[in-house]
């Protein structure tokens, strides 16, 4: 890939069907939300019996911002030639509404609910339009291009480098020595001074009364010396109310 690679041809305002290379995977039809239902019914009469999938795509800066893509399939039954057709319906970003086809094909029910859930394109006439993948009280539509990958709550937190979690195997390997050595090494790395190797039974006693929930690294060193709190506190600090 020579370094003089030209920058990407299309910006985000892109109509893929206009610039696509010649691929014979399906016949492509472009429509608008008003005409999509009649187009699909005509195709169904024409022999495209199965609506195999409805997909959503978000082109951020393009005028009809969303594309709802209907994939139809004609079977090679009684002499007909099997064929696919793809109907792309451009939906404006301001008030994305598309008429439903779940009364014609019941398979559209969940597909439309998923597009509503992940893109925010609502389907008028859908019997039961509510979120399907995300919890009921989730705000925002994740597959939109302006939705951050890691979600609004975590978008500003940097990717955690090495969390403070002790990744020491939480049990003593048969030899019993390596865990202790590893913990001494980690304690040294953290700048804590580990007391000389405590006699085993002292460790047992100290361990017997440790607080529930703390990871008991059953090696020679006991959790207290490593300053181990219960796991949850030791991991990354989640933002307290989770919304900011």
């Amino acid at each position, binding site marked *: 890939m020579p370094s003089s690679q030209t920058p990407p041809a299309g910006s985000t305002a892109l109509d893929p069907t206009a610039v696509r290379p010649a691929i014979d995977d399906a016949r492509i039809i472009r429509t608008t939300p008003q005409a999509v239902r009649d187009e699909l019914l005509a195709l169904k009469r024409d022999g495209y019996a199965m609506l195999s999938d409805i997909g959503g795509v978000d082109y951020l800066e393009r005028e009809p911002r969303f594309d709802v893509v209907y994939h139809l399939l004609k079977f090679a039954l009684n002499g007909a030639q099997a064929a696919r057709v793809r109907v792309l319906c451009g939906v404006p970003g301001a008030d994305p509404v598309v008429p439903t086809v779940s009364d014609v094909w019941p398979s559209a029910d969940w597909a439309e609910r998923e597009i509503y859930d992940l893109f925010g394109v609502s389907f008028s006439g859908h019997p039961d339009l509510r979120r399907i*993948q*995300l*919890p009921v009280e*989730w705000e925002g539509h*994740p597959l939109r291009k302006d*939705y*951050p*990958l*890691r*979600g609004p709550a*975590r978008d500003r937190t940097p*990717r*955690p480098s090495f*969390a403070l*979690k002790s*990744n020491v*195997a*939480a*049990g*003593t390997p048969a030899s019993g020595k390596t865990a202790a050595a590893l913990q001494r090494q980690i304690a040294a790395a953290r700048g804590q001074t580990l007391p000389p190797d405590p006699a085993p*039974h002292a460790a*047992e*006693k100290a*361990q*017997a*009364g*440790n*607080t*529930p*929930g*703390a*990871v*008991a690294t*059953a090696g020679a060193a006991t959790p207290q010396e490593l300053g181990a709190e*219960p*796991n*949850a506190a*030791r*991991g*990354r600090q*989640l933002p307290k109310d989770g919304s900011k």
Partner: protein
Amino acid sequence: MAVDSPGEFLLGKVDEVARWAQSSSVWPLTMGLACCAIEMMTATAPEYDMARLGSEVFRASPRQADLMIVSGRLAQKMAPIIKRLYDQMADPKWVISMGACASSGGVFDNYAIVQGVDTVIPVDVYMPGCPPTPDGLLYAVNLIQQQIRQGGRGGIFARA
């Protein structure tokens, strides 16, 4: 096990026997999330045979399970359910966080996956791997057994 005060001789011994009994039959909870669940099932299949560790009885209800193997990626929608299942398990209970997705979100650092089960429930053994091989799961159950024998969660009779 050295003993400090004579009074502790009896309880110490009973506790040790109880811990030995508990550790030799740790019953996991039937709760498979994603790909790691398939490897967990394969661990009970003849090739790896978790029955050798006494843990092949997968209890469907949390009331009868001692060990929760979080096998797979934990979605945000599933987090309250995992927390509820953990709370409904009888004490003493242990947790294995199987695989990279359960331990730290793994390859999915995005909005949908809880970045580490230990932000929801306390975890005893973390397992690397995506998915970890069934031998890895056997080693993890071994580590849990060692923890139990050493009174990882305060033993059976500890009044903690």
